C-alpha cells in the first residue's frame, strides 16, 4: 500500500491528508471515561485512539518496588493486537517496554512524587488504534488521567511531534510521514513552567531544521494544552453544575 506513495508533500505544499505543514490533526479529548479507575482519559488524535487509566496512589505491590523517599510511578504502554494493520502480538514488545519507560519519565517531572513516599501509582495506556505519534498522544492522555485521579501536579504534560517529510519541516506526523519521512522529533512539554520533559529525535536533521522542528512542536503542544484544559473543565464544570 505504501509503495505507491512517492511524494509526501504535493505541489501546493499540502500533505497526504490535506494538511498544511504547520497544521495539527483533529484532536478529541475526554476525561473520566472509565468508572473503575481512579482517573482516566481518552484521546483521538487523528486516527490514533488511546485510552489512559490511572490507579492510586495506593500501596505498591510487589513491596520491593516502593521508594523510601518518593512515590513510585509504574507505567504500561500497550498496543492492542488490532491497533495496527498486521496483527500485533499482545505480548509486550521491546518497543512497548521502551515507550513505557520513556512515557513514565516524561510524566514524572510533573507529579509531586516527593509528597507521598512509599506509595505507588499505576498508569495504564492502551492503544486501540495507532497512526503515528502514539507516544505523544499517550502522554497527553495520561497526564489528563493523572489530574483526573486528583494527584497533585506541577502542570499538565502535553506532547506533540514535528519532523521532516520530503524536504519540508512539518508538524504532527502521521504514520506514513513517520515511516517514509526523513526525521521525527517528539517533544513533551509543560507549558506553564516552560519545561521540556521529553525530547527525542529519529532521523537526520541539520541544526537549523532541528530548531525549526522543535519550535514547531512547542507551538503544537501549546495548542493541545488549551484543549487539555478545556477537556478537564468540561468534566468538572458538569460536576460543579450538578452541585449548584
Amino acid at each position, binding site marked *: 500500500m505504501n509503495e505507491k506513495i512517492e511524494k509526501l508533500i504535493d505541489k501546493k505544499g499540502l500533505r497526504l491528508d490535506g494538511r498544511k505543514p504547520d497544521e495539527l490533526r483533529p484532536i478529541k479529548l475526554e476525561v473520566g471515561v472509565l468508572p473503575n479507575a481512579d*482517573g482516566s482519559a481518552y484521546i483521538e488524535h487523528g486516527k490514533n485512539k488511546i485510552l489512559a487509566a490511572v490507579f*492510586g*496512589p*495506593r*500501596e505498591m505491590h510487589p513491596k520491593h518496588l516502593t521508594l*523510601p523517599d518518593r512515590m513510585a510511578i509504574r507505567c504500561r504502554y500497550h498496543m492492542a493486537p488490532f491497533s495496527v494493520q498486521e496483527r500485533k502480538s499482545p505480548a509486550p514488545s521491546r518497543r512497548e517496554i521502551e515507550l513505557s519507560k520513556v512515557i513514565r519519565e516524561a510524566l514524572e517531572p*510533573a507529579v*509531586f512524587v516527593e509528597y*507521598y*513516599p*512509599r*506509595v505507588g501509582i499505576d498508569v495504564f495506556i492502551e492503544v486501540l488504534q495507532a497512526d503515528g505519534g502514539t507516544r505523544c498522544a499517550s502522554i497527553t492522555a495520561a497526564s489528563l488521567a493523572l*489530574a*483526573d*485521579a*486528583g*494527584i*497533585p*501536579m*506541577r*502542570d*499538565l504534560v502535553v506532547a506533540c511531534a514535528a519532523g521532516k517529510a520530503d524536504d519540508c519541516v512539518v508538524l504532527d506526523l502521521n504514520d506514513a510521514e513517520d515511516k517514509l519521512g526523513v526525521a521525527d522529533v517528539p517533544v513533551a512539554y*509543560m*507549558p*506553564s*513552567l516552560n519545561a521540556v520533559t521529553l525530547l527525542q529525535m529519529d532521523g537526520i536533521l541539520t541544526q537549523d531544521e532541528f530548531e525549526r522542528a522543535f519550535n514547531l512542536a512547542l507551538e503544537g503542544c501549546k495548542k493541545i494544552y488549551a484543549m487539555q*484544559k478545556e477537556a*478537564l*473543565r468540561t468534566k*468538572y*464544570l458538569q*460536576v*460543579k453544575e*450538578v*452541585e*449548584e
Partner: protein
Amino acid sequence: MYFEKRQLVTPGDLLAEGDYVAGENTYVEKNKVYAARIGLAECDNKKVSVVALRSFYIPKVGDTVIGTVMEVGFNGWTVDIRSPYYALLRASDVLSRPFKPQNDELSQVLDAGDLIVAKIASYDRAHDPQLTVAEPGLGKITRGQIMKVTPSKIPRIIGRKGSMISVIKQETGCQIILGHNGVILVTGKTPEDEELAMAAIEKIEKESHVSGLTDRITQMLKEEKAKREVKQQ
C-alpha cells in the same frame, strides 16, 4: 491575582504573582503561585488555596478516622483507612494492658472486616500511621450505618464551628461520627432516623458550593419530619 473567587482551575494554572502565600493544593515557583489540583480557587488574606474536587486522604495526627480491619497480625491489626497508607493498630493499645501472645487471641477482639473508629496517634513520612482507640467513643462499631464521601467535603459537613452537623444531630436525634478520611457513621434510634440524616449529608455533599446551605438543610429536615408524622397518624 489571576482568578475570580471559586473559579475552576486545573493543574499548572497561574493563580497569583508576587506577595502571596501558597495554601492547600498550590505551589510556588519563582514567586508565582500555581494550582496543583483540579478545584476551586480561593484567596483568604493573601493566602491562595484550591479546594480540590478530587483528592485522597492523607493521615494527620489527631484526626478521627473510620476504618476496616484488613488483617490480624502477630501483635496488632492492619486497618484500611481509605488512604494510600495502611494504618496499624497495636494489640496493647486495644487491650489497655501488656499483650501476651500465649493468652490473647487477637481475632476474637477484632477480626478482618470489623469496622472501627480510631484516632491517628502518629504518622510521618517515614512510618505508616498508627491508630489508637484509647479514648472514650473510639473502638469497634457495633451498630449504625456507614456512608462515604470525598475527604475534602468533611469540613463542609461539619460547618462553621460545627453548625451544620449539630443541626442534623438535633433534628434527627442521630449520633454522627465524621471520619476525616471521608467515612461517616450514623447511629440513630430507628433506621428511618438514620436514613434521614444520611439524606441530609448527601444533600450537603451535592450542594456544597451554594451559600445558605445550613438553612436549607434545616428546612429539608423539618419538612421530611412533618411528612413522616402525617404518615404515622
